[in-house]
């Protein structure tokens, strides 16, 4: 579970690890009931996956010229107002590579 948490960029305490492990194991056991409904079950033959809606005739991005498509200076400024740190209209973040002595 520690590995999965790392992939999800979450740090979990030892106490959380114990609680989550038993809760998640119960949930995964429950989810595992799906096995008996899959794999050769006739009910699933010819069914479409959950991505079915992707085939619908949804508007293409070019058609979607709503306000979201026009990120003007005002919207960008408002966006940057929400940023924990910014400089000259760029987001400011710690350096990608850890500083010497860092633990990454």
């Amino acid at each position: 579970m520690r590995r999965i948490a790392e992939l999800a960029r979450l740090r979990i305490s030892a106490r959380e690890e114990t609680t989550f492990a038993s809760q998640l194991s119960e949930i995964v056991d429950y989810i595992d009931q799906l096995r008996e409904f899959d794999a050769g079950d006739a009910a699933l033959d010819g069914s479409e996956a959950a991505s079915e809606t992707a085939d619908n005739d949804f508007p293409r991005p070019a058609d979607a010229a709503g306000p979201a498509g026009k990120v003007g200076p005002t919207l960008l400024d408002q966006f940057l107002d929400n940023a924990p740190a910014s400089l000259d209209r760029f987001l400011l973040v710690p350096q990608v590579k850890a500083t010497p002595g860092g633990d990454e």
Partner: protein
Amino acid sequence: MQPATVEKLAAAIRSGERNAVDTVEAAFARIAEVDGSVGAFLELWRDEATERAADIDRRRDEEQPLGPLAGVPTALKDNMSLAGHELNCGSRILAGYRAPYTAGAVERLVAADAVPVGRVNMDEFAMGSSCENSALATTRNPWNLAMAPGGSSGGSAAAVAAAEVPLALGSDTGGSIRQPAAFCGVVGVKPTYGRVSRYGLVAFASSLDQIGPLARNVRDAALALGAIAGPDPRDSTCSEEPACDFLKPIENGIEGLRVGTIREVTTSALESDAARAFERALETLARCGAELVEVSVPLIETAVATYYVLANSEASANLARFDGSRYGHRAGGARSLAEMYTASRSEGFGPEVKRRIILGTFALSSGYYDAYYGRAARIAGALRQQFTEAFEQAELLVTPTSPGGAFRLGERVDDPLAMYLSDVFTTPTSLAGIPGISVPCGLDSRGLPLGLQILARPFADGAALRAARAFERETGFECRPEPAA
């Protein structure tokens, strides 16, 4: 005296019989009176609401036409954007975030002249069935303050039930409008997937999320749905089907309509009061002239498991954006970008969100993808097909909204699986993308409300509303919670 309905309020404001400013003021007075104990609201927008109401009164005085929701005080769930206002999604990770633009559904609401009065509590990122996963406040059920209001739109349902506002918007991913509506004795509508724009709604599980209204009666919910539904090019999953007047045919009844019960939904899954209420609800539908038939949706029993795999997989991807770089909480002292991501997320997310992200990451991870996400997606497709076949035998389907009435606050917080299982009747509808309405169907032996869920084919939201109205007319249910009254 029953609080005024959305329909009557708007009509009175349009005709000049009452004014919007007084109406909004009355809502704030009621909120001041009861919200200390109910705890639905996270923030009130008094100045802006009063200004908006004054503008409505001015336009009425100038004899300009007013919208169908003229002057109606409305609560917004804390995951919908209203430009310039804070939006936290019930989470510490979005502390201080201000929406730079307004959600599509909220734009339509305001264009219909409704007045947003504030934002209401919810489970963090809409993950929960009791509102207890909110990092910001505790919301109580107005019928019994020791009970949960349901979730995740618990603030929306409680605010309407306690007559703080006549209308609220909620969002529903696996039952988050319908279950709290049932617990609080109000009407909650999860429209067809694609019926209402999600532009400006914080995403939880994008293949399932849908915005809908909660109101004290079916006509009000229908009026509100008509106002917020319709195409929006900014949400590529929003249908191009134009909005329609859901109110016009709503009194037409259900005489001769085939209403199906689902064979696999057995009363053994229900608490005894809920089982009895469901039996009585079927008798009521028969009295309304419905022809009761039985249909089969065998995969319905897989819905909770399927839902929790798909929804959490999507959530793990959708919530990757909350990393402290662009908005919300940023952990201090990080020496690298990766460290900042991890620290910000670990400090900002609550336990249920972490559990679900871990579960979703697991279901999508290499080596497990096909066994979890892939399998759940296949089963969801087959379930949808089974619903399509069931709707060949019946125009509408009915189930209880939840296996029982509201549970006690704190009762299920340490048992996530038990909490998930309260969504057993609402998750199938979400996976199928069909409309579902919860309408009150009486009280249990503790005096707490129970809900009947009415389902229809995709885009037959109007048929479900019509049936809900016929049912409501026959039962004459009144939402009168004592503690908050």
